[in-house]
């Protein structure tokens, strides 16, 4: 029997974890190990994936992966549960405190002026970035969605200029299976921070301490920040900090990063252990009596075997020994063992497996969780089911319910778009556009009255005000989109959307997490591309980035409206609906094509923690909006400014550099465009003016319409001999390259080559489909 066979609400005990490679190790790291009790919470509305409860937290996994986890519901099997001990007065070990742990005579401080470097390490979604912001006063993005931190960030601690804290991506273990884990592990091993600040979610100590065990093995000064203590104690739980400190051999500081409590004490301890290089007192967690001491003997034997190699490779010996047992090839390569030693290693591992009855990876995971359970039994009074959890369960009944999840999602997303593009965003955009227009008129009048040259006036008004101004007017829409999506993400809803959309997206080779960028793409491709950063897999991220341009962005609406009003009067809704549908359909086909060619393989396993719903902190939301606005404005005044001046120049001067004025007739741009005329002739769009308009759409989609208006001077409808060419233009505009801002954001995420490739790819698809549309309509009509 496997987890997949359990019904919602049913509990069982894990008997074996099958499968292999990264996924299996990930399961073990997440606490899915033999002997653990697991409860099925629910299945997604489409029946896959499922949500299970293990070690007091919720985990999602696909049915295909759940098939590898065998369970038994036998009543004889006793689940591992805590013996809750009443917390009593205990002795304070005084670790990381002056005059208590070390004496003046034996202390060995670092030389004055040494920069104290810290690695901030913890599980995903345990409040690391919130703590980083509190420690450093930074403005980093905080979410309630696992994997918000996708790259490292550095800053010094407030009031301690000689320190540098690095916020590393959230990880569950130091196994080398995910990008984040490799980054974090390499940082700790190669850059050797002076100390580690390990942040633990106090409401989920068991799972969080699994990483702590591995960090302690690295033999680097460390302090534990027990975060969300307010939530834990608020629900009746408590931690005997002194006992925990004594058992782990490192300072433990209870904090609440969100409420800025305990931060100063944490800083004092962190600076102290780093300055005096106080290493963990304990790295040996194996119990001599556990499984007849099999794991203990195995680890110690390997430690002795590799001691010289570990020292030569600069690796902590205990860490290296554990990793060798787990079959970590990267560590094995670094150790450069002799063939004889490799043989001995294999023999020791085989002996371990035969004595314990588990494979090596499971035996190590089992040993770690055994120790964690002992620590928790001695030092932790588990809280009752938290208010947040009860509230989340109630909300989830509706938002992830079998029949309500999809309708609720549709309503929520429609509300987001309605507020963004119809109400608040549109209102603010119009307001800003009016302001820019007014400023433009005032400036033009001022230039006229100052007798400014016609060329200079054109540069300022037609070039800078029109170009930068039209892009700047999108600022409110961008900010509002991010505001609403941040609310959804920070509340924990986006994680649920990923959960119930996974099955659908897997059919086109993506995982549930890709749904958000694709939805944002209907608003604007720029934030859509930026939001792919939360995707954990490089393959999924690239694929999602390349698919977002197929979701027709809002800036293309003026083009559709213009063409519909000109050629399809009275059929607006039908044509508009068809255009959007075509974009999605082509996107799906392209995704299927990508899945079978450039991006072969499956989307990453959907093993994700579902966080409780939380009210987002207004400070964090405002902080994020400020960042986004700043980023957008910076872009408008750099890349957009330069490109608008270049386009203005090409549009305003002829080949002899004579000013060609507003009409753009005989301009350099029109000469350049005329080279494209043969390319567009088969589509029925073989006119330099149309080519110019399409090129100007590369700067901003809205300018396609304004360029057509200027160049055709009211004769646009007469130009088209048939509706088929108009349809071809509609299809081409829907699918051809996104604007320069979007291409720039793709360049930021995936590099120039991919961005350029995407432009060519989009234009080619647009051309082929526009040609097909023309042929079909010519035949039909």
């Amino acid at each position, binding site marked *: 029997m496997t987890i997949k066979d359990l019904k919602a609400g049913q509990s069982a005990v894990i008997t074996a974890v099958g499968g292999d490679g990264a996924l299996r190790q990930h399961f073990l790291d997440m606490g899915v190990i033999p002997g653990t009790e697991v409860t099925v919470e629910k299945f997604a509305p489409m029946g896959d994936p499922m949500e299970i409860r293990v070690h007091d937290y919720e985990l999602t996994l696909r049915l295909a992966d759940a098939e590898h986890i065998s369970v038994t519901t036998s009543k004889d099997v006793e689940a591992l549960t805590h013996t809750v001990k009443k917390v009593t007065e205990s002795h304070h070990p005084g670790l990381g405190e002056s005059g208590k742990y070390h004496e003046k005579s034996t202390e060995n401080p670092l030389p004055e002026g040494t920069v104290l470097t810290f690695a901030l390490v913890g599980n995903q979604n345990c409040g690391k970035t919130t703590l980083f912001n509190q420690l450093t006063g930074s403005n980093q993005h905080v979410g309630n969605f696992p994997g918000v931190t*996708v790259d490292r960030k550095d800053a010094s601690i407030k009031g301690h200029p000689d320190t540098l804290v690095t916020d590393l991506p959230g990880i569950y273990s130091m196994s080398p299976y995910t*990008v984040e884990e*490799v980054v974090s592990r390499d940082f700790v091993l190669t850059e050797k921070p002076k100390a580690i600040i390990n942040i633990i979610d106090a409401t989920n100590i068991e799972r969080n301490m699994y990483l702590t065990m591995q960090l302690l093995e690295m033999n680097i000064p460390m302090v534990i920040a027990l975060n969300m203590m307010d939530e834990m104690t608020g629900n009746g739980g408590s931690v005997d900090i002194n006992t925990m400190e004594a058992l782990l051999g490192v300072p433990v500081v209870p904090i609440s990063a969100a409420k800025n409590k305990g931060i100063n004490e944490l800083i004092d301890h962190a600076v102290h252990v780093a300055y005096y290089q106080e290493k963990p007192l304990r790295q040996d967690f194996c119990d001599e009596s556990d499984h007849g001491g099999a794991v203990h003997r195995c680890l110690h034997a390997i430690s002795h075997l590799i001691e010289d190699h570990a020292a030569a490779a600069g690796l902590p010996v205990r860490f290296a020994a554990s990793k060798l047992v787990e079959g970590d090839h990267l560590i094995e390569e670094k150790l450069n063992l002799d063939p004889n030693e490799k043989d001995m290693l294999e023999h020791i591992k085989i002996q371990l497996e035969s004595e314990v009855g588990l494979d090596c990876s499971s035996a190590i995971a089992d040993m770690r969780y055994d120790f964690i359970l002992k620590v928790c039994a001695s030092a932790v009074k588990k809280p009752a089911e938290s208010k947040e959890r009860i509230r989340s369960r109630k909300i989830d009944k509706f938002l992830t319910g079998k029949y309500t999840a999809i309708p609720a999602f549709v309503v929520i997303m429609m509300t987001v778009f309605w507020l963004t593009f119809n109400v608040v965003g549109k209102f603010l955009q119009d307001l800003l556009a009016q302001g820019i227009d007014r400023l433009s008129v005032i400036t033009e009048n001022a230039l006229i009255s*100052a*007798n*400014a040259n016609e060329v200079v006036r054109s*540069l300022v008004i037609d070039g800078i005000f029109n170009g930068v101004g039209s892009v700047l007017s999108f600022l409110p829409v961008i900010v509002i989109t991010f505001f609403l999506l941040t609310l959804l993400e920070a509340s924990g809803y986006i994680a649920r959307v990923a959960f119930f959309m996974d099955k659908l997206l897997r059919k086109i080779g993506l995982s549930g997490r890709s749904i958000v960028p694709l939805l944002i793409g209907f608003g604007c491709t720029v934030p859509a591309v930026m939001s792919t950063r939360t995707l954990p897999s490089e393959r999924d991220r690239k694929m999602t980035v390349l698919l977002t341009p197929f979701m027709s962005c809002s800036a293309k609406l003026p083009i559709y409206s213009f063409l519909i009003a000109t050629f399809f009067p009275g059929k607006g809704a039908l044509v508009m609906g068809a255009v959007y549908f075509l974009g999605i359909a082509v996107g799906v086909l392209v995704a299927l094509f990508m899945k079978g060619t450039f991006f072969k393989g499956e989307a990453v396993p959907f093993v994700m923690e579902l966080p409780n719903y939380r009210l987002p902190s207004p400070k964090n939301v405002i902080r994020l909006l400020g960042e986004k606005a700043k980023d957008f404005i910076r872009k408008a*005044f750099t890349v957009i*400014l*330069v490109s608008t001046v270049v386009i203005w120049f090409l549009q305003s001067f002829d080949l002899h550099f004579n000013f060609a004025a507003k009409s753009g007739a005989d301009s350099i741009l029109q000469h350049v465009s005329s080279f494209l005329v043969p390319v567009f002739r088969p589509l029925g769009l073989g006119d330099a003016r149309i080519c110019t308009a399409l090129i100007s759409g590369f700067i901003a989609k809205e300018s396609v319409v304004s360029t057509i208006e200027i160049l055709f001077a009211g004769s646009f409808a007469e130009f088209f001999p048939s509706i088929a060419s108009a349809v071809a233009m509609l299809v081409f505009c829907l699918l051809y390259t996104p604007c320069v801002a979007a291409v720039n954001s793709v360049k930021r995420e995936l590099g120039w080559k991919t961005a350029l490739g995407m432009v060519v790819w989009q234009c080619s698809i647009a051309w082929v489909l526009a040609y097909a549309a023309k042929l079909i309509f010519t035949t039909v009509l």
Partner: protein
Amino acid sequence: MSAIDYIILAAVAIAVVLAVIYLIKNRKSGQECSGDCANCKRNCGK
């Protein structure tokens, strides 16, 4: 061309040059993060 024309042209030229310098500088210092830490050796600090 009057003095005001030269002033405006100079201002626009300076703005464009500064924007180009900013873009080039950011590219060289690696501020434009690819988001892919495993493949990217730059420490962009973002």
